[in-house]
C-alpha cells in the first residue's frame, strides 16, 4: 500500500523490511513490547513522526474536554438523582427517569449536531466548531467547550443520575435516616450529610464504568466539533490505516481506563472506612 499501486516486488520487499514485517510475528511483538517499556510507541507509517510525540501534542484538548464533561455530568446528575430519590414516585421522579431513558437513546453526535443547529446556526450564541486553549483566555475556552461537554455529558448524566437515584433509594430506607430526621436535621442536611455519603460507593463505581463511555465518546465528539485532540488523531489514523498510531492510541486509552478504575477501587477505602485492603 505504501509502495503504491505500481510498486515492484523489490520495492514492496524494501518497505516490508523497513517496517520489520519480514520478521516472524513473535519477534515483531517482542520488539514492540520492548519499545513500549521505554515509552516508545513506534513511528507513524504515514508521516514518520514518533507516535508518542503525536499523542502528547494532542493530549491537552482531550483532557480538557474529558474533565469539563465529567464536571457537567456530575454537577447535573447528582442533584437530579438525589431529587428523584427524595421525591420517589412523583412526577419529578418520573421526569428524571424519563430523561435518563432519552439520554441512553441519543447518540453523542446526534446531540452534538442538535446543539450546533440550535445554539450556533439558529441563535448564533456560540462558535460552531474548533478548540481554544485555556491559555488563550478562559472566555474563548469556555465558549468552545460548552457544546462538546454538554453533548458528551448527556449520556453520562443519564447514567450517573440513574445510579445516584437507585443508590439513594436504598440508603433512604435505612433506620439511621429516620433517626436523622427525628433529631431535627433539615432535609438537605439528611440528604447530603447522611444519605449521599453512604450512597457514594456505587456512584463512584459507575463513574469508573462511565469512563469507558467517555473515551468512546471523546473520539466522536472531537470529530463532530473538530477539536484537535487524541480522538481526532484516532479517526485520522483509521482513515489512513496508520496502524502504529491506532495501536498506540488504543493502548494509551486502555491504560487510562484501567488506571482510573484502579483509582476508583482504591477510593472505596476512603469513602467507606469499613472497606480495608
Amino acid at each position: 500500500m505504501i509502495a503504491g499501486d505500481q510498486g515492484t516486488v523489490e520495492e514492496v520487499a524494501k518497505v516490508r523490511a523497513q517496517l520489520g514485517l519480514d520478521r516472524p510475528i513473535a519477534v515483531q511483538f517482542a520488539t514492540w513490547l520492548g519499545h513500549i517499556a521505554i515509552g516508545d510507541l513506534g513511528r507513524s507509517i504515514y508521516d514518520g513522526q514518533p507516535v508518542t510525540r503525536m499523542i502528547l501534542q494532542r493530549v491537552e484538548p482531550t483532557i480538557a474536554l474529558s474533565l469539563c464533561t465529567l464536571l457537567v455530568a456530575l454537577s447535573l446528575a447528582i442533584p437530579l438523582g438525589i431529587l428523584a430519590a427524595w421525591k420517589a414516585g412523583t412526577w419529578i421522579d418520573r421526569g428524571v427517569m424519563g430523561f435518563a431513558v432519552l439520554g441512553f437513546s441519543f447518540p453523542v453526535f446526534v446531540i452534538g449536531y442538535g446543539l450546533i443547529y440550535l445554539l450556533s446556526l439558529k441563535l448564533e450564541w456560540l462558535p460552531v466548531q474548533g478548540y481554544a486553549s485555556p491559555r488563550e483566555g478562559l472566555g474563548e475556552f469556555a465558549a468552545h467547550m460548552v457544546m462538546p461537554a454538554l453533548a458528551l455529558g448527556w449520556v453520562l448524566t443519564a447514567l450517573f443520575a440513574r445510579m445516584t437515584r437507585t443508590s439513594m433509594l436504598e440508603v433512604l430506607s435505612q433506620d439511621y435516616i429516620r433517626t436523622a430526621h427525628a433529631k431535627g436535621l433539615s432535609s438537605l442536611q439528611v440528604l447530603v450529610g447522611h444519605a449521599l455519603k453512604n450512597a457514594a460507593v456505587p456512584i463512584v463505581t459507575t463513574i469508573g464504568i462511565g469512563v469507558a463511555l467517555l473515551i468512546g465518546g471523546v473520539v466522536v465528539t472531537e470529530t463532530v466539533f473538530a477539536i484537535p485532540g487524541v480522538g481526532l488523531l484516532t479517526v485520522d489514523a483509521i482513515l489512513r490505516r496508520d496502524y502504529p498510531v491506532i495501536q498506540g492510541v488504543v493502548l494509551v486509552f486502555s491504560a487510562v481506563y484501567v488506571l482510573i478504575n484502579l483509582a476508583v477501587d482504591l477510593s472505596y477505602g476512603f469513602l467507606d472506612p469499613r472497606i480495608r485492603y
Partner: protein
Amino acid sequence: MLVGAALLAALIACALFAPLLATADPAAMSPIKRLRPPGDEFWFGTDSLGRDLYSRVLYGARVSLMVGFAVAFLSTTAGLAIGLVSGFARRVDAVLMRIMDGLMAIPPVLLAIALMALTRASIGNVILAITIAEVPRVTRLVRSVVLTLREQPFVEAAHAVGTPVWRILLRHILPNTVPPLIVQATYICASAIIVEAILSFLGAGMPPNVPSWGNVIAEGRTLFQVAAYIVIVPSIFLSLTVLAVNLIGDGLRDALDPRLARRM
C-alpha cells in the same frame, strides 16, 4: 414498553418493505437535483449527489436493525456458552476470564474501532467487531448467575441423584439464565445500533456505498451548515430506533425481574 414495541414494529416494517415504500433507488444519483430541501417531490430532500434521502433512510433501517439483532443474538449466544463452561469448569475458568478481562480493559467502542481498522469494511465485519466487544460483559453476567445457581439445593440434589453435568447445565442452570439474558440482549441490541452508527460515522464501519444511517450522517457532516436536514433526518430515525429498543428492554426488565423493578 407498548410504545416501544409499536415503534419498533413500525421501523421493522420500514426495513422489510423498504423496496416497496421507497420512492426512488437509494443509490441513484442525479446531479441536477442535488441538495433539494425536503418537499413534495423529495419528502426528506436530496443529498449532495442528488440521491433521495427518504429512500436512503428507509434502507438505512435495514442495516441498523440487522446489525442490532445480529449482534444481540451472536453475543448472547457466545457469552452464554463461554459463561456456562467457565462457571462450571474450574480449570478453564481462570484462562477464559483472564481473556475476558483483557478484552474488557479496552473501552468497547475503541475495541470495535481497532478491530474494524484491521479488516475490510463490510456488514459481516461490523457485526463481528461489535460482537467481540460485547461478549465479555455477557460472559460475566452468565458466569455470575451460574456461580450462584450451582450452590442452590436443587442443583446439589440433581448431583446427588447422579445427573450428569451436561444435563444439569442444560436442564437446571440454562433456563434460569434466560430471563436476565433476554433483558441484556435488548440493551446490547440498542448499544450495537449506536456503535454501528458511530463506526460508520467515523468512516470505520459500513462500506461507503451502503446507505446506513451513520454513513448518511457522515456524508451530510461537511454540508451541515447549508443542508442540516441530511444530518437531522437520519439522526431522528436512529434515536427513535434506539429509544424503542431501550423502552422494550426496560419493560422486559420490569416484567422478568420484579425485585429489580422496585429498586430501579
